[in-house]
């Protein structure tokens, strides 16, 4: 048994020509399936089956308490959802929270990666330090930020009022301040991770390009624009796609940010995201059918958002 056969890779062309049907009978072929089976069985049981079950559930009126009594409602849950002000509120909150947490985050990550790519003193220290927030647990980070942003006793309002002589901001009850506070948590945690990905991609850019550019008298800013950015384009598309998916599913930060501990996203749902709404519908309000419809709607929204990203990226590539 060769290692190739073990991994189920295509056989060399010569073997194929010599005995066209023989590859079906190679002993390694079948064991290949055995090796990939654990993943696919788990995938079927914990991804495919729940997807189908969720889709089926979304067509019924199901409550957690009366789980076995399902009433067929067809697309009723979906029409209910699309005419529901809570859904649209959560939809727009997810969108605005996503924009204000990913756009500055990716720009900052890019800038950081660009700077850390130069030969700096203590470069490793900065590179590791940058990744520390990512290694912090979401709950721990959010608890700290909740205290920082506390309208009455938080450090941020203290600095605003005592150092800058500005009025205090209600970071919890007012809509935009609360959304900005939540995106700050998100940005703080993920900026290092994205910077690391950019940094890895930057290392693949030929250093001669930078040398040539500086010989030509290009400033660091111009080097960034004309060497770094074009070299990073595929990586940037990747991070945008991953961040879009992440932002669309934002859940932990707004849940833990609410002082009541309820999945309401603030007392007037001012920062309730789609994932929070889904949780509230399913687990607080007991309406699993409606929550399942929200889950599938979220999935479709993510597919559309990612497709738009990729289309824009392709358009740009074709134009340039």
């Amino acid at each position: 048994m060769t290692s190739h056969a073990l991994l189920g890779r295509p056989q060399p062309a010569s073997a194929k020509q010599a005995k066209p049907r023989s590859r079906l009978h190679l002993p390694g072929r079948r064991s290949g399936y055995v090796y990939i089976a654990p993943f696919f069985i788990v995938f079927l049981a914990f991804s495919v089956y729940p997807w189908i079950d969720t889709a089926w559930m979304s067509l019924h009126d199901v409550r957690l308490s009366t789980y076995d009594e399902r009433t067929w409602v067809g697309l009723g849950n979906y029409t209910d959802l699309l005419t529901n002000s809570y859904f649209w509120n959560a939809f727009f909150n997810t969108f605005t929270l996503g924009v204000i947490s990913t756009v500055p985050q990716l720009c900052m990550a890019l800038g950081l990666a660009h700077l850390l790519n130069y030969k700096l003193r203590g470069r490793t220290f900065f590179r590791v330090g940058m990744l520390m927030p990512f290694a912090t647990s979401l709950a721990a980070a959010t608890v700290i930020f909740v205290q920082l942003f506390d309208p009455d006793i938080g450090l941020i309002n203290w600095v605003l009022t005592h150092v800058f002589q500005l009025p205090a901001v209600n970071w919890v009850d007012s809509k935009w301040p609360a959304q900005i506070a939540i995106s700050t948590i998100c940005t703080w945690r993920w900026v290092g991770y994205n910077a690391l990905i950019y940094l890895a991609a930057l290392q693949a850019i030929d250093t001669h390009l930078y040398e040539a550019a500086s010989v030509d008298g290009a400033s660091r800013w111009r080097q960034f624009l004309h060497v770094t950015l074009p070299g990073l384009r595929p990586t940037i598309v990747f991070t945008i796609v991953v961040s879009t998916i992440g932002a669309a599913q934002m859940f932990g930060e707004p849940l833990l940010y609410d002082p009541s501990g309820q999945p309401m996203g603030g007392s007037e749902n001012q920062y309730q995201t789609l994932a929070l709404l889904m949780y509230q519908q399913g687990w607080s309000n007991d309406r699993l059918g409606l929550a399942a419809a929200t889950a599938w709607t979220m999935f479709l929204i993510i597919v559309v958002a990612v497709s738009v990203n990729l289309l824009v990226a392709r358009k740009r590539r074709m134009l340039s």
Partner: protein
Amino acid sequence: MGSRPLVRSMLALAALLAGVSACTSGGQTASSKVTLEGPCGTKKDATVTVGLFGTFGFQENGMWKEYKKRCPNITIKQNQVTASGDYWTRLKTRLASGSGLDDVVAIEQGFVADVVQNHADEFVNMQTVPQAAALKKDYYGWKWKQATTPDGKSTVGLGTDIGPEAICYRSDLLDKAGMGATPEELAQKWTTWDSFIKFGKQYKAATNGKAFLDSAQSVFSTAVYQGKRAYSDEQGQPDLEHSDGVKTAWKYATQAAEAGITAKLAQFSDAWNQAFSSGKFAAIACPTWMMPYIQSQAGPAYAGKWAVAPGLPGGYSNWGGSFLGVPAAADQKAAAVALVTWLSEKDQQVKMWTSKAQGGHFPSNDKAVQDPAVADATSAYFSDAPVGQIFGGIAGKMKTLPPVGIYDTQIGTVLSTQLSNVEKRGTDPDKAYAKAMDQIQQITG
């Protein structure tokens, strides 16, 4: 030949899926008949798991140790979840799947109606176990009824504690405001919500704008159970339109909020916890389980500064209380029923109220209430208040209580959130109420 592994894996998958769906339909078929063998339910060695939430206090008050002496063959394993909402979601999920259930599960008053209506057949019917059924006559009628199906045939659990309410207040702060009086005199001044709110306004004026009450929630959650109906009708279905309790409670709670006599603190928040000693408020609606809570938050330095007035604006009211049930799918049904029965007996309920460690769980067993250890109890921390007499008196007045319903907890949460919007953000009460009705619509569907 080549496709055989594929066939095999398909079969494996089919078996897996069948296993999953078999799980979801389990539970219902299990028999709910239980026969107890001796006082411990069984003569064999057994481990009984007990699912609890919040601060039940059985372990803290030494009940498990005592049970080990009584039944050396029984080992008790306690699984406690802090938040009752999380606990309930978990319990519902396990009831739906029929697996992972503890042998004894705690059921809070806020969701007992759901258990009675939707899961009665998944619990041991206490009426069919002679030892448990014999306790019925000792219980407050309304308590037994809350855990019983409307046809009266099935009882899903036995009551632990109840939450008769009075008003706890800071006597030192009232003295400072020049409004000090004996607990009896204060109770006289606080017979109605109108006079209570008027008193709050006077306190505010006398203290240069200090808040009298902790939160408008203190008014709301008390007054809502003073009506004929709270959130639900007699069948346990949500009905706010015909609820006198919700209307009155909303009226007085928003009055208190708009008069500015509340400290606008969210109950059970960190800021609220701190305020028991900081003096941000002087009074709070006080179900009996609130007393140990106040004591632990305010600390020993405030002993004698807190007191209890023997009365409640608007009459009497009950806040909270729980039950212990045994799922029909439990592994150790007999041992579990024996444990629940023992915990519900007079002596154990007396201990849960009088224990120094974590007492304050007022008996739901009337025999225990009559016991001198309960009736004559006083609290040194609360200025030697005759708490046994006070809460026993209030509990005795509660002949009937409004029916409990399947969404009481969720509806209560929505209304309290909107109430806090009136209190903190100055939202118009009518608008907040309309918003609450809209959100309740999302729950009831």
